């Protein structure tokens, strides 16, 4: 697992870390049952506020992505959810890849593609189910 934060991006650090940990699970770089660094070690290594790491682990435990075992540490949960995630990403990723290839071929910039992507997400939130 390789975690790298960008404190100046405006995106809360805990959200960056949650996404990266889920991504690491999805691509198989950490597997169900693997142990994650302690809050102390991760806060020290990334030089971030310890409460931020605690929040990441708390929220991922709530989402059943991680498992907090008392006295033992934090582990990737051994649950179908994590497997489903990786299946889901594998199923959807080719479509995104294709869209990016077509956008690039049509001469779109990265910025334009990102904006288009964001607006599509917004659109699906406002037309479909109520967004969070």
């Amino acid at each position, binding site marked *: 697992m390789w975690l790298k934060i960008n404190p100046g991006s405006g995106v809360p650090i805990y959200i960056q870390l949650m996404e990266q940990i889920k991504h690491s699970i999805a691509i198989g770089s950490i597997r169900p049952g693997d142990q994650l660094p302690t809050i102390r070690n991760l*806060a*020290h290594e990334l*030089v*971030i506020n310890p409460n931020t790491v605690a929040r990441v682990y708390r929220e991922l435990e709530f989402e059943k992505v991680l498992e907090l075992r008392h006295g033992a540490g934090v582990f990737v949960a051994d649950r179908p959810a994590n497997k489903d995630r990786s299946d889901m990403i594998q199923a959807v990723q080719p479509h995104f890849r294709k869209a990016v290839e077509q956008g690039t071929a049509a001469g779109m910039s990265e910025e334009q593609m990102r904006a288009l992507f964001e607006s599509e997400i917004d659109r699906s939130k406002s037309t479909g189910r109520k967004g969070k």
Partner: protein
Amino acid sequence: MNVPAIEFLNVSKSFRQKQVLDSVRFTVPQGAICGLLGSNGSGKSTSMKILLDLVRPSEGRALVLGMDANNPAESLAVRRRVACVTEDKSFYPYMTVQQVLDYARKFFNGWNTERLSVLLKRFELDRSCLAKNLSKGNRAKLALTLALCRSPEVLILDEPTEGLDPLAREDFLQELVQASLDGVSILICTHQLAEVEKIIGSIVLLEKGKVLLHAEVETLKEKSRFYHLTFRDQPPAQIAGLPANARISRAGRSMVVSSVGERWDWRKSFADLGVEEKPMTLQEIYGEVLKINREKRGGDGNLE
């Protein structure tokens, strides 16, 4: 129950006619890292001095670990448990680093020799160098070393990362994270927001002696946004239903709504428009809060 590390209870301070602090109220829980931010003259230094009993409030009380920082009967006990690194990091010019350390340790019972050797190694400080000949960055490291080796419960830092190169800054911040993990409560006064934003848990933003914002950093960033709207014609003169801390800036057919601490549900009014949302950095949040405050007071960017 833990008492807070630092508590300002409606602290006001005037020097002659000039009011420097106006009912300042904020809390730093034990073990937290809090950033005290504000432009020059906002009251940051006075707040720090009150905690060290160098200045006494005109009204209100400042508590450190539950004790009144400005009560003569308690202020000495407070200062034993609080370490401070000031902006001016000067040492006796005739002392070497080793002599400074030997001198300082005599004042403190809880001097931590183990921590000292770790820090000296970590910061690569040369014990035989005259302290006055150290570079600015190394003086800052020596000052932090002295403060941490005292085993303080509360650490107050004034512009701690000023003059540090990026690598030294990272080492410095890492030691602060370590101190926080060891239970030390930390108050960082600075206007170098970007440099410390990843280690601070909450911020207190002072402006002209008043607290404009007291919030948890991650939640604040999550809820603050720029919304960029492009209209087919002239943008409307007014928008109903904006969050309390929001402002509008316009340029031709487009309009930017910046909202701090609260998401704006633009779909209620502009569902048919393409609206771009962008996150705000802490620096941007700081700038927007000042502008929103100035607009509310009716001034048009008018500083005085």
